[in-house]
């Protein structure tokens, strides 16, 4: 179980997160939704320690990881998947994946790269290409695959649909859904594309100006027309 309590962060005088609280359960997809600038990406960056929190805690299975160094989080089983540009463009597909497996959750077996290629056959075909030669969809597969190499229990996904064709988004979300079930993952999915996100999410959290304005089962959110119009744009 992954829990965020009263988390706040600021860029200089500007408050970007203001007392955000939510929990994400094992084997479920929790979607964090909101308009551009609502604080979604900042939320993930604060959880990972890339942005320093001013208040609040982040807990992973009851353990406080708020002040844990970014570099150590993968060994606690938490993987933050930055948006698709987060491939290391100068490295090849295989090297990106190898890198993902170097710092694993403690005491876990290394994940064979071939397993990732089974999940994403397209990556297997391009294994020796450098990442900057990949298409947007392939890059997204690569960053997800790379995160899986660390055998995480919690996966934080930042805008996996950004800039991708709807067909590709659907494909990736299908894969994700499958993974959550087969690997018992906790997934926190940050998305601007609320409609698609809610279609695979179990639970939804809506942010506006750094604050949680709604937190409810995904189906409920999708049904709330007023909320959708106000914050989710569909």
């Amino acid at each position: 179980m992954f829990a965020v309590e009263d988390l706040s962060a600021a860029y200089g005088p500007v408050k970007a997160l203001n007392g955000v609280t939510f929990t994400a359960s094992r084997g479920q997809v929790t979607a964090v939704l909101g308009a551009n600038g609502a604080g979604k990406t900042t939320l993930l960056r604060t959880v990972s320690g890339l942005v320093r929190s001013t208040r609040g805690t982040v807990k992973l299975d009851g353990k406080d990881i708020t002040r844990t160094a970014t570099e150590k989080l993968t060994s606690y089983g938490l993987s933050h998947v930055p948006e698709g540009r987060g491939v290391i463009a100068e490295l090849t597909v295989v090297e990106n994946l190898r890198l993902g497996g170097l710092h694993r959750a403690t005491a876990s077996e290394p994940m064979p790269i071939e397993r990732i290629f089974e999940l994403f056959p397209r990556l297997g075909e391009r294994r020796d290409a450098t990442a900057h030669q990949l298409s947007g969809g392939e890059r997204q597969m690569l960053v997800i695959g790379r995160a899986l190499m660390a055998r995480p229990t919690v996966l934080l996904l930042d805008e996996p649909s950004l800039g991708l064709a709807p067909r590709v988004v659907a494909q990736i979300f299908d894969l994700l859904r499958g993974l959550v079930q087969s690997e018992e993952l906790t997934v926190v999915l940050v998305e601007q594309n609320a409609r698609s996100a809610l279609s695979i999410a179990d639970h939804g959290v809506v942010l506006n100006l750094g604050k949680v304005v709604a937190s409810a089962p995904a189906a409920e959110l999708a049904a709330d027309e007023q909320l959708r119009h106000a914050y989710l744009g569909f």
Partner: protein
Amino acid sequence: MQQFLDTTLGGLVLGAVYAAFALALCLIWRSTRIVNFAQAAMAMVTTYIALSLLNADVPYWLAFLAALAAGFGLGAVIERVIIRPVEGKAELNAVILTLGLFMVLHGLTAITFGVQHRGFPAPVSTNAISVGDTSIGITPFGILTIVVVALVMAGLVVLFRFTDLGLRMRAAAFNGEVSRLLGVRVGRMLTLGWALAAAVGAVAGMLIAGGDLVNPAFMDPFVIYGFIAAVLGGLDSPLGSVIGGLILGLSLSYVTGYVGEHLAPLVALGILMVVLLVRPSGLFSAAAARRV
């Protein structure tokens, strides 16, 4: 013809040392986007450490290793203590900082070891090799120089291509934030990058000092020639640095041999400007055009 051959061989040996030095600059550029103008002074310091050991009758190769180790330590300390605060800041800061470091290391070495010119021994003969009756313009030490530089390059290729540590270092250099998210201790990798670079610089220092006189200024030409060799190859590309070093070594050797030593820096400047203005990404950089 004989002179041309001699000049060419001399240029290759010189070029090998420039290559090693450019490689060191390239390692640092790749990891921290900083051109280390203090590299030459750092190599000078390590060479002096080796000289002190040699004068205390320590065997040559032990002193060589000591210089390498000293370079490694010096590079690490400098990155951690002095360079870290300006990483990612305005680029002028790093330039001025490394130039200041250049002056400080220079002066401190002079105060510690004295400013006299002192002979520096070579591990093998510095007499030309004879083939039959004619001697050719390369010495066993020259051959050793090329071999050592080649070994260093091979070592770096193995490190970066085939080891996890090398993969971590490359990742940290290319994209620090993503690397941190993947668990790479980026700070440590950058320190290691500087340490390795300084060790490679130390090798260059030992090779240029052998069979010559050293004084605290003996590495100064490398401040510019090393930079030019690295830019020639594209700063980002280790292979380019090596080729850039060889091209520069040969060019300067021909200029010195056929025109006059005093024009060498001017020719070097010409080469630099042509590369920067005509092919800014360097002769061998695969990456897209860079902003110079």
